């Protein structure tokens, strides 16, 4: 796939049989370490993984495993709801953070914290906040209403929603920052001209901001989709896939099968995701290797 991609754009390079100059020999030597890493830790594992997933029986077993179907649906919900919500908020907040105010500058410094700190301690912190007995949320609910709060992580849909929330909390700053750089690149004259013509806030967004940010926004959304597919931490550390394995996504399901020693199922579940991942990857590579 990568080969066909580079085909039309590659700088015509002389055939390898042509005499190599000294710098080119050095070039090969300096490229060799990465090629070795690539062969040993990408090509071999991927090939080995595909080989492990070669039995049709694994796919039949997956098809009959209700947890797999549930995980596939969860992954779709996670992607569709989580990413669109996240990107919409990021687009909105990028406008907020693009405002020239001292206090907003300071706020943006703090705002980046979720992205700067590792996810494990903060996700575990949220996990305890949601603890039905000891968590601060239910204790506050009890204090104000004298009623017990819900058992947050024991309801699969609420638990999945919370995992999506954790994912958004963690990655929102990054995307806001990226969209903000896109916004700051828009010429200010456009807005001033629109202001003179009496354009409303929504008109300015519709006719100036959105057209110039469209491409960036879509690129970000696709990239975020690929990365979110691999988001293991948000689900695993918050719910552990529970209750009753109902909140797994594809990223955690593979690991679950691995832990149950069902390696071929683990690989087969990943192979099932490839038809969705590869087109996205292809599209992103076209975008980035321009």
């Amino acid at each position: 796939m990568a080969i066909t991609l580079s085909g039309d754009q590659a700088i015509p390079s002389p055939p390898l049989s042509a005499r190599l100059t000294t710098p080119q020999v050095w070039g090969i030597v300096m490229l060799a370490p990465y090629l070795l890493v690539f062969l040993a830790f990408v090509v071999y594992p991927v090939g080995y993984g595909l080989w492990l997933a070669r039995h049709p029986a694994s796919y039949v077993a997956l098809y009959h495993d209700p947890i797999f179907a549930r995980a596939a649906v969860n992954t779709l919900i996670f992607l569709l709801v989580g990413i669109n919500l996240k990107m919409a908020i990021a687009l909105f907040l990028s406008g907020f953070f693009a405002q020239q105010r001292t206090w907003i500058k300071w706020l943006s410094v703090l705002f980046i914290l979720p992205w700067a700190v590792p996810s494990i301690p903060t996700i575990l912190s949220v996990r305890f906040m949601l603890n039905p007995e000891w968590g601060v949320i239910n204790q506050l609910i009890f204090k104000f209403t004298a009623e017990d709060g819900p058992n947050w992580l024991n309801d699969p849909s609420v638990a999945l929603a919370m995992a999506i929330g954790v994912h958004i909390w963690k990655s929102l700053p990054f995307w806001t920052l990226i969209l903000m750089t896109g916004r700051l690149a828009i010429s200010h004259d456009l807005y001033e001209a629109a202001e003179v013509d009496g354009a409303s806030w929504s008109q300015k967004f519709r006719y100036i901001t959105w057209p110039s940010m469209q491409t960036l926004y879509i690129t970000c959304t696709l990239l975020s989709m690929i990365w979110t597919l691999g988001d293991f931490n948000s689900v695993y550390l918050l719910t552990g896939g529970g209750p009753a394995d109902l909140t797994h996504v594809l990223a955690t399901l593979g690991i679950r099968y691995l832990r149950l020693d069902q390696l071929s199922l683990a690989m087969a579940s990943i192979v099932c995701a490839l038809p969705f991942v590869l087109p996205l990857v292809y599209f992103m590579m076209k975008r980035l290797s321009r």
Partner: protein
Amino acid sequence: MKLPSLREIGNEAKLLLIGIPVLIWTLVPIYHMFLFAISPKEDAFSGKLWPAHPTLNNFKIVFYQEHYFLRDFWIQFFNSVVIALSAGALTLMIATAAAFSISRLRVPGGRWVMNLALFTYFIPAAFLAVPMYRTMGNYGLLNNHWSLILAMVTIASPYAIWVLKQASDKLPVELDEAATMDGATTLQLFRLVYVPLMMPSLVAIGTYAILLAWNEYLYAFLLLSRDTEITLPVALGNFLAADDSPWELLMTTGFIYALPPAAIYYAFRRYMVGGLTAGAVKS
């Protein structure tokens, strides 16, 4: 002095109406973690927003390893440091050499390698984890720090090569030509011209790889298992194994674990924002 008009006040109020929820949303999980770290056990579990008796005792327990879950804290901390630094250094060496080779020496097939690397960058890391685990087993590297270091290098280098290639494409070719005219060998060109000019990007990439390896949980918990060999995040995850986990100690350890990356991030923010986010998404 001009008094702010009604419209300006309204604007400011609207901005505050966005800013305050954003601030609360951002800080609550971190504040909650900090709160646990400075609370004695009774206060931590009482749901108070500020402990009645704030204490640093939890930190003392962690630092002196005075709890069953923390008996290997310093070794695990040290493991995290060694793995993060090694992964950072190795990534930097491999990626710089590769970017130099592709961008400056225009090695045949360089573009091809670039695309393969980019392809790897887009495979979700959690998908590669399962085959990677088996591969490390086949290589006999399981429960060895090298397995995690090499896995992190594999994951970090594609992006590193891509960013470094973008940056080095911007250096004028005349520099290389002039140096070669003066009789510089390829290695001298690399050492004396290329690396010094690429310093800002190298700092950004080194930091990126170090943070990636320090923060990694999934691969660390798959590839390492002995208590004296795991990294801090895996140790944090292991707290959950018990029903009566000492959450205040878990949060304290988590807080200590989160400090170095946050400090590094803020210290190198200038480089990170310029070098990484600009390269992350090209519109």
